[in-house]
């Protein structure tokens, strides 16, 4: 049985949860088994997870789950997996997942693939999963050699698919440990989709010349409904917040559309963005290395090109 940990963010099941269940369902189909979802805490709307392929939803409740604690969440998932006899456990490779996946693997002494980007296959008799390595410069096919297998799925790796109907929700009794960490502040920017989950990203580099010029990036992002990003020197100079920095030593992203303006395309920048489906590069230097990694290129001054592109997007969206 495949057990998927469906995480609720800010009181709702969102894209990340739907993605992992879609992934879990496909995995279960390959193995000829069932896919069930696990929910920790009392978030409403868990029945709807059935639509993405969960046969059943299991819920664990308890005061210890009120705020996130990696050890408590790990214990809950591990015990649920044991009770239900799960052989594959699937989570999101997001900040929660990164705090849990390793713990879960150690607790169950199970092989894990963190950040998988394709659905597993049986190859030469082995359960094999692909993941990006070297920040996207290559992919590795990893065999999982243990009876229980753990996979965390990179965001935007698989299109969400509705395949079923609402599922029944059953409560699981699990005794939970006391949390040892205390969350004293939890702060998320509302509005924009967080960068790792964003399907459309508009990014600016040193070609913008200064933080006061970011309006041209913001306007295009606004018109597209995109999230903003930047190159490393831009974040290092505090022109933009650190969490916008993409690349080998920043956030690795794989949106459908990545628009880069005033970014030269250094290898460390490309490493974090070259798994994007479509790349548009706007640069005044026709020899900028980024054009070699782009699908569409505009050779021109970004201060002229970006406002024109924003207008064109508005015109298209207005139709």
């Amino acid at each position, binding site marked *: 049985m495949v057990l998927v940990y469906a995480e609720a963010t800010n009181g709702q099941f969102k894209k990340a949860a739907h993605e992992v269940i879609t992934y879990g369902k496909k995995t279960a189909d390959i193995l000829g088994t069932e896919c069930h979802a696990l929910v920790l805490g009392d978030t409403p709307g868990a029945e709807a997870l059935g639509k993405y392929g969960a046969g059943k939803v299991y819920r664990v409740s308890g005061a210890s789950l009120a705020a*996130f604690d*990696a*050890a408590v969440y790990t214990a809950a998932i591990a015990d649920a997996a044991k009770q239900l006899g799960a052989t594959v456990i699937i989570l999101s*490779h997001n*900040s*929660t997942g*990164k*705090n849990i*996946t*390793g713990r*879960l*693997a*150690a607790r169950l002494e199970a*092989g*894990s693939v*963190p950040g998988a980007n394709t659905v597993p296959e049986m*190859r030469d008799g082995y359960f094999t999963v*692909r993941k990006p*390595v*070297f*920040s*996207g*410069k290559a*992919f590795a*096919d*990893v065999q999982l*050699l243990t009876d229980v297998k753990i996979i965390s799925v990179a965001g935007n790796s698989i299109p969400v698919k509705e395949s079923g109907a609402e599922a029944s929700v059953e409560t699981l009794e699990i005794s939970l440990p006391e949390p*040892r*960490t*205390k*969350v004293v*502040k*939890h*702060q*998320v920017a509302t509005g924009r989709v967080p960068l790792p989950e964003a399907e*459309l990203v508009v990014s600016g580099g040193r070609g913008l010349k200064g933080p006061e010029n970011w309006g041209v990036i913001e306007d295009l992002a606004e018109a597209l409904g995109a999230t903003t990003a930047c190159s490393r020197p831009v*974040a290092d100079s505090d022109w933009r917040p*650190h*969490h916008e920095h993409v690349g080998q*030593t920043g956030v690795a992203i794989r949106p*459908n*559309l990545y628009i880069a303006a005033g970014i030269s395309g250094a290898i*460390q920048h490309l490493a974090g963005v*070259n798994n994007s489906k*479509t*790349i*548009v590069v706007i640069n005044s230097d026709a020899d900028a290395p980024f054009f*070699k990694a*782009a699908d*569409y290129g*505009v050779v*021109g*001054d970004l201060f*002229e*090109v970006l406002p*024109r*592109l924003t*207008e064109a*997007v508005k015109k*298209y969206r207005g139709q």
Partner: protein
Amino acid sequence: MKLLVCVSKTPETTTKIQLTADGKEIDTAGVQYIMNPYDEWYALVRALELKESAGGSVTILNVGPADNDSVIRKGLAIGADDAVRIDVSEEKDSLYTARQIAEYAKSQAYDIIFFGKETISYNGSEVGAMVAEFLDLPYVGEASHLEVDGGKATITRDIEGGEEVIEVDTPVAVSAAKGMAEQRIPNMRGIMMAKRKPLEVVAAVDYPDTTRIVTYEKPEEKGSVKLIDPDNMDELVRLLHEEAKVI
């Protein structure tokens, strides 16, 4: 405070990854290695700052072959007091690596065990969490700030689109992300002193492989770029909609 910093070795960031002809391995010919940036820039430097303000010691630990000693010496040159290398003949999987770190650390009573947010080679983000579980320690991943005050740590961690502040009693395991500290460049004196600092080599304990990388592949090369006239952004929007189908 007794501090441990786990460091790994990765190809230098400008490395163009090449595969062997059969695609089974990374072609390491000519590849230069560095200490994983998250381990060096953030984890190690924050540990050194804590030692400088509160006293104690900073030990760096690597699980790897003797070739890794040069990377370890760099950590000593930046300021760690001593180092441990758990001797394995080749790179092993995450759970094996974590098991070795936990075996060594379990009798050492560290107040904080530092990791990097991820290795920029395997991009796992899991070794720190594994060690924490083996040692039954609380773990905070992707931390951008860390303060310690008399056995209590206050840690800010990155979450999607924001951050969370966490209080936890030491001992604790932490993985360091950008923001935690500023990179330090070793000076001549540090480099000279590093040669005389202790580097203990410890035998590995047996542990089975739980995963195995069987093949590598490189991403498909992009075809040649389609250039659009800067005066015709309607055309770009049309292509993004009709051809690329992304808007």
